[in-house]
């Protein structure tokens, strides 16, 4: 047997698994989006846009806003880890920021739901410490809750990538800029961020895709209208067994993700050219 044949043979079972249980259903989903009754048509999409335009816009905005905030926080954390001058504060932040990364989304949904509720620990603490009165307590369990949950969970992951990339930036440039009197903020924005831009964008694109497909957080924090597409898809299946519209909503969410991936690919191609 030729070594290349043997190699292919050994990888084949694993490959078959992905093709059979992911690519085939994915294709079935995209095809299924266009099936109306027993012929092809755009009926599912017209119905989706009729019923869920608000949720489609809501989903795109929520995920985009979350990505933006994650990006800002990740740069701030990475920047302080790289440029921070007090070793103790740097060590403390390094120990602190990673925790949410290890916590599953479903747990994030549950704990933030109890924390951010009107009678949750956050408001209780604020009331007990006299910062607000009980009447001023606000529930964050709407779009803000989803954004907070996403930012809470995804920031450490992107910050880890960004901090790693910043650590490998040439120290000489940073020292030179410091000696010329540049502030740390200016060094961060003008020297560090441009050099780690690719890593930052990769991390944000990965986060974007992850957030687009999370079902547990919208179900637990904000199941009322408007909500995220994932919750709508689950509802379409569980309440109506309506695979057509569910697949169409899936295709729309895939299209949103593809747009982001396309922007990212175009960016990297331009950098290489």
């Amino acid at each position, binding site marked *: 047997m030729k*070594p*290349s044949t*043997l*190699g*292919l043979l*050994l*990888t084949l*079972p*694993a*490959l078959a*698994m*992905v*093709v059979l*249980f*992911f*690519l085939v*259903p*994915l294709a*079935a*989903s995209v095809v*299924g989006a266009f099936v109306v009754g027993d012929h092809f048509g755009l009926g599912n999409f017209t119905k989706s846009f009729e019923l869920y335009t608000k949720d489609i816009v809501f989903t795109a905005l929520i995920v985009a806003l979350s990505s933006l905030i994650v990006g800002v926080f990740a740069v701030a954390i990475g920047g302080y880890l790289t440029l921070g001058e*007090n070793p103790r*504060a740097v060590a403390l*932040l390094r120990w*602190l920021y990673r925790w949410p990364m*290890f*916590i*599953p989304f*479903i*747990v994030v949904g*549950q*704990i933030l739901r*109890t924390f951010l509720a*009107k*009678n*949750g*620990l956050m408001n*209780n*603490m604020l*009331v007990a410490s006299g910062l607000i009165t*009980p009447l001023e307590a606000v529930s964050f369990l709407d779009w803000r809750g989803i954004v907070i949950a996403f930012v*809470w969970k995804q920031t450490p992951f992107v910050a880890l990538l960004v901090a790693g990339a910043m650590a490998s930036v040439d120290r000489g440039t940073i020292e030179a800029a410091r000696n010329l009197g540049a502030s740390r903020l200016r060094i961060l924005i003008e020297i560090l961020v441009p050099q780690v831009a690719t890593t930052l964008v990769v991390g944000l694109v*990965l986060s974007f*895709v992850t957030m*687009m*497909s999370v*079902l*547990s957080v919208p*179900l*637990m924090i904000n199941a009322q209208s408007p909500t995220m597409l994932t919750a709508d*898809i689950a509802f379409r*299946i569980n309440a109506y067994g309506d*695979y057509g519209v*569910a*697949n169409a909503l*899936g*295709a729309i*969410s*895939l299209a949103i*993700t593809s747009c982001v991936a396309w922007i990212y690919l175009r960016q990297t191609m331009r950098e290489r050219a």
Partner: protein
Amino acid sequence: MSIAADTSSARRLDLWWLPRAAILGLIAFFIFGPLANMLLWTVTERWYFPHALPLDYGFSSWARVFAPRGNAMESLLNSILVALLTVVASLSLAIPAGYALARLRVPARAAILLAFLIPQAFPNLTVYVNIARLFYEVGLNGTIAGVVIVHTTHGLVYAIWIATAAFAAVDTELEEAARSIGASALAAFRDVTLPLAMPGLMASAIFVFLESLDEFTGSYFVGAPDVNMLPLLLYTAGAGGNYQIASITALLLLVPSIVFMLLVERFLKADVLARVGR
């Protein structure tokens, strides 16, 4: 002079600790506040607005979770069973594939490595919906086997990518030395390469185990309501307003995640990490 300069710089440092401590404290509050809230709920008997802390503490909810006839015990056992089976399935696929991708000439190697990333890189909700429909027709829906298949497909990228890196980090010469003193290809693999790659394979097993333990969407569509698993229990308890059960379940999911992540740092050595995804 120099003493005066020293004290003034020390005082300046002290002043800098004010904003630093404020910001670090705020970060700590937002990271540990929700976690503390969860821990409080696990030992709460009575807690209502506007009391800042629970009124009565106790372990009665723990007794309910761990009662042998309770739904929670069944969910815990199912979750662990599924996660272990997923690890076995993933590694038995990943060890031959990882070895081949690291050592043998495989056509379209980069494309194959990327293929395993696809289940992680696409919004997978509609895929699970369609798998559920497919499984329903062949009788796999609502079975442990069905859930294991879904979890394996999802976790395969960790299994394969890390296994490939682990095999690539093993020195080829050791294997050749074993072959030259008469070991068969299989014996050389079993006695030399496999043990040396073991720490990396352990790390990939841990990633797969955790992915399976925490996976909600696939379990929701393929498993529920016949196969009860911890994330589903957490969801139903939380949705039903039983914060005690939900928080205890959350803790059961969270502890292995944190413990295993600390372990992974010991198993995943830099030489393996540097090769992941190559």
